[in-house]
């Protein structure tokens, strides 16, 4: 496992306040998904990123709209942190015509091309080579932007993770592999999935630069991601960033979580990334009131967007057959 070459970037207080608000945005957003899912307003089975927000925020703080992002089944936070419109994202999760994918994709297949969100996959590991491919396209065109892919620790059980890492290293692709190691794959703990405790350990054989950090510390994520992305932009090849984190919610909305003890869940709350940034900012002399109002602003911003999404129109059933092919002539298949 390598350590950082370049000194960690240090965010200004203002940057941190932005991130604080961004963390709250995701937290509130996921809370609304949970609430409405419980109320039966959300189709499918959404997976929440509650507790893992610092990874999304700390990494995406370094990205431009041209940088491409791929995420997984647990991608709401990444998409928001990348700049996708809150209302359009929520509308997609509700399956509305105003959703980013016009209600065709849903929670597990969020795409917002205008903001560089090129996709999410419901098949674990399936997003990894796509991100490498986007990086290849940038490399082939001599463009300077990079590709980022977020995935869970369970995805390292999938062969395509290893295939993709091998190819990315071989081709020196500007792709950042961000693993959110939350210690579980569905109901099964990491120990039962693999003898390999840290995902970053997979990097060594390839001479892939990698680091394991505390993914609940947004400052640590910001610093590590900054250094990693700097390396990528220099054209020095891929980077694997493992962020140790915790999922405060169930695997999906409705998961009874029999596999986790009360104590464990309590301990998880201790590590809440929002609380930790708050403590840091208070120590830096930021007023409690300012932080509270930032939280409030995020809450209002999201809730307003959610309410607009809830009253947005549903897709027209007559349009169900659109977007299958490039040309109508190809689409005439019964």
């Amino acid at each position, binding site marked *: 496992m390598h350590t950082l070459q370049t000194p960690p970037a240090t965010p200004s207080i203002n940057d941190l306040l932005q991130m604080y608000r961004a963390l709250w945005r995701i937290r509130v957003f996921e809370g609304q998904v949970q609430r409405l899912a419980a109320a039966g307003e959300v189709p499918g089975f959404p997976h929440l990123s509650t507790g893992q927000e610092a990874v999304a925020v700390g990494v995406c703080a370094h990205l431009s709209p041209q940088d491409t992002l791929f995420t997984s089944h647990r991608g709401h936070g990444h998409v928001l942190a990348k700049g996708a419109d809150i209302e359009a994202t929520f509308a997609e999760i509700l*399956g509305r015509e105003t959703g980013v*994918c016009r209600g065709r994709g849903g929670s597990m297949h969020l795409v917002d091309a205008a903001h560089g969100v090129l996709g999410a996959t419901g098949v674990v590991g399936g997003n990894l080579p796509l991100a490498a491919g986007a990086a290849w396209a940038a490399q082939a065109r001599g463009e300077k932007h990079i590709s980022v892919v977020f995935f869970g620790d369970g995805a390292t059980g999938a062969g395509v993770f290893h295939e993709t890492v091998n190819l990315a290293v071989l081709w020196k692709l500007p792709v950042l592999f961000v693993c959110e190691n939350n210690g579980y794959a569905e109901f099964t703990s990491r120990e039962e*999935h693999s003898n390999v405790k840290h995902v970053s350990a997979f990097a060594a054989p390839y001479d892939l630069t990698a680091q394991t950090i505390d993914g609940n510390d947004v400052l640590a994520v910001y610093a590590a991601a900054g250094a990693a992305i700097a390396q990528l932009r220099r054209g020095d090849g891929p980077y694997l960033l493992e962020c140790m984190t915790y999922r405060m919610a169930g695997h999906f909305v409705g998961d009874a979580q029999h596999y986790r003890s009360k104590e464990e869940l309590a301990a998880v709350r201790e590590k809440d990334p929002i609380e930790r940034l708050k403590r840091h900012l208070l120590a830096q002399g930021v007023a409690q009131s300012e932080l509270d109002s930032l939280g409030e602003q995020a809450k209002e911003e999201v809730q307003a967007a959610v309410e607009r999404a809830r009253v947005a129109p549903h897709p027209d059933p007559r349009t169900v057959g659109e977007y299958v092919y490039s040309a109508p002539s190809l689409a005439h298949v019964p």
Partner: protein
Amino acid sequence: MSQTFIEILRRALDEELARDASVHLLGEDVAAGGAFGVTRGLAQKHGEQRVRNTPISEAAITGVATGAALCGLRPVLEIMFIDFATLALDCLVNQSAKYRYMSGGQLAVPMVVRTQAGAAGGAAAQHSQSLEAWFIHVPGLVVVAPSSPVEAYGLLKSAIRLGDPVLFIEHKRLYTMREDMPENPELPPIGKARIAREGKDVTLIAYSAMVNIALEAADELARAGISAEVLDLRTLLPLDMRTIAASVAKTHRVVIAHEAVQNGGVGAEIAARIGSELFDELDAPVTRVACPFVPIPFAPELERALLPGRDDIVRAARGLVHGQGH
């Protein structure tokens, strides 16, 4: 007292684990009960060595099950969604299905791959597919798709005891269906269809969750004075043409219904065989009711608009009986 599809499947697995020490379960989270709870409690009862959790490695676990089957275990592998069977196809198609043949009969692969398929409630494009048609195109495989809890109970047991690689497809909408277990349920033979309802004017051929929809259609048709016979194929590979022929010889009209997209679906093979083997029996063209050629959308109203339903079958059957549609 009635039980759900999931509970009855669990009972079948429990009894097979108890009956035959060579039966082993494996798959993602199966020791924790599985994503849908089918295997709940079985690891505790039969031991974690008989009911094993696996990593998210569809290719490897299918290969491991196949290799174990070559050595005489009878693995029952759970692939959580048939959409993920795409990751297991090299092994299933190039190895499991061909092993007996390539070895000149030296080896066999007595294995069951349980998987879950179909669309419901916004599972969206990658968790809703019906891909059974791929598997009926592969010599060496057997494909079973039960239509009810009690059917699933017997068919799963028959599949586990068969001695060939079996793809066992469970429709997610059936998981909550309830039935009473009969005292001593018979085990339906693999390869035999079932007449789910007798009729004389038109034959409705279906399988999996579509059987119940066909039965509803038959009720509706009865009200319109049309007597529909409903066939539950149960096994898609091999196909029970004898039962189909007997019904067509009686009704001379056929509607084939499945949830998979029509183009290249199982219905195509059935229609083609009826068209060639029973040409002179047909008073009207064989009609297929299936999903239009579109991925499964997320939004419920789009999903609903796409999926074939009772009314589509009724309309097709009426068309045949009243001579419309051709």
